[in-house]
């Protein structure tokens, strides 16, 4: 494993990304809240550039105690990475599809050392 310097943590705010390549491997590193997540820029569906997709809050549907649908709304603390080719969504924490845990993007470990963000490749 090699640690690749991404950026200073202070330069990245919530929702920001850094896209890095060595000409072959393409990696996206995202800041979500105080956490950093890194993924391969290839969707398991059809190989789309998932790291060049939108960061969207998870959509939630709320039910009443009688199981009536009350409303849909955006989550305030859970976010998804959305592949721009076909809309596959992935949880930042695990890289898995919210409705199919066996559908996942490859993730890479990240760490912050003395305010600097690294991804381990």
């Amino acid at each position: 494993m090699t640690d690749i310097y991404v950026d200073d943590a202070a330069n990245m705010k919530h929702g920001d990304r850094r896209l890095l390549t060595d000409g072959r491997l393409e990696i996206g590193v995202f800041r979500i809240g105080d956490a950093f997540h890194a993924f391969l820029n290839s969707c398991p569906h059809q190989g789309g550039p998932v790291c060049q997709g939108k960061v969207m809050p998870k959509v939630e549907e709320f039910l009443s105690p009688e199981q009536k649908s009350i409303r849909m709304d955006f989550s305030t603390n859970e976010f998804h990475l959305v592949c721009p080719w076909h809309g596959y969504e992935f949880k930042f924490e695990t890289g898995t599809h919210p409705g199919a845990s066996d559908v996942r993007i490859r993730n890479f470990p990240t760490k912050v050392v003395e305010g600097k963000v690294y991804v381990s490749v």
Partner: protein
Amino acid sequence: MDDAKAKSFSPFGNNEALTSESNTTETLRNAAKYRDRRKLHDYFIADMDTHHFETGSWNEIIEFVEDPILRAEALSFKRKPDSRLGTVLYHANGNMFSQSVGGRIPHSNLSPGEPRDDTSVHPDVVPLRRAMDSFGIDRMILFPNALLQVGTHPNVKVETNLAFAYAKFLTEVVLPGDPRLKTMALLPFNDPDACERMIEMYGDHPSIIGFTVTSVRFSPVQDNKYMRIYRMLEERGLPLSFHAGFNWQDGYLGQLDRFITMHAISFVLCNMVHMANWVIHGLGERFPKLPVVWIESGLAYIPFMMQRLDNEYLMRQSEAPLLKKLPSEYIRDMYFCCQPMERTNMKLLEATFEAINAETQLLFSSDWPHWDFDAPSIITDLPFLSETGKRNILGENARRIYRKL
């Protein structure tokens, strides 16, 4: 830390998400990598269903409308700044276009803001060329978007005039921009006389490889008024296709209040109705040499239709006296565009391929740039298909059926 390796990484993509203004080449960069890795240039790839953003050129198309009254009416709307399409000719499904999933899939809005740097061709050609180059596509068959619903317009003259105007616009303005671009002209199906005129006018055009019925309509295909049309196409060796679409205005489908369900059912239902009529009314017997192609309904519905119709036919043969074999055998004589190919259960997909004789009957189609497009990799990556089968589906089947391809 391995400094040498670390220094070899550099930024790309401006650290930003793709947008509806992104260059198609950038959006499809991963497709181009796949094209090179899998040597797709060694294949003849015919994309039998790609979409041209005709509403982006609407103000040019309406200039080609023959009827002076309709043309004047359309042009009067052109000047209204709040008129999205600049025309009164256009009504179906209003502005309920939700393909981008709330903006999550930017290219599905057909990239109206994409830079067009090549001024030697019509601006519509530029993103299409980028897509062909990125996928490694050798022929791209264009269909419109909004015009797929024109068959429900209450004024039959509107369908007729728009079908001719669009054929003229494509053949005179867009298709000359690249020899790889072709189309299957729209038949104004609510006006059979005009359909015959369309076939006579464009049947020999080198860029029009066949003709299309837009499936969103309420016109039973077995009506006697259409028999001359089918005969004309059969005699000329020109395939007839049925291109599916959605119809949120239909009462039954109006119960589906989310785009996902409406789209999932609507795009299949229209072709199921036409296919059932085509088979049970013996049109396969009446026009045995007419290739019939079903577009944009996926594949999963076909085994359902085969089993359902066979089962009922065996009990009610008297209602289908023209048939000389099982309904499924007539369906097996037809051709199918693969997109959107349902791939979540490989066993079922493999069974479907076997049921429809996919190696000879299936045609690759991308449906680019729509939200559920399929890249050529969906065929080349199939684990159960022979190399010959892959080549046939990607292009050789189409080359056999469409003599002008």
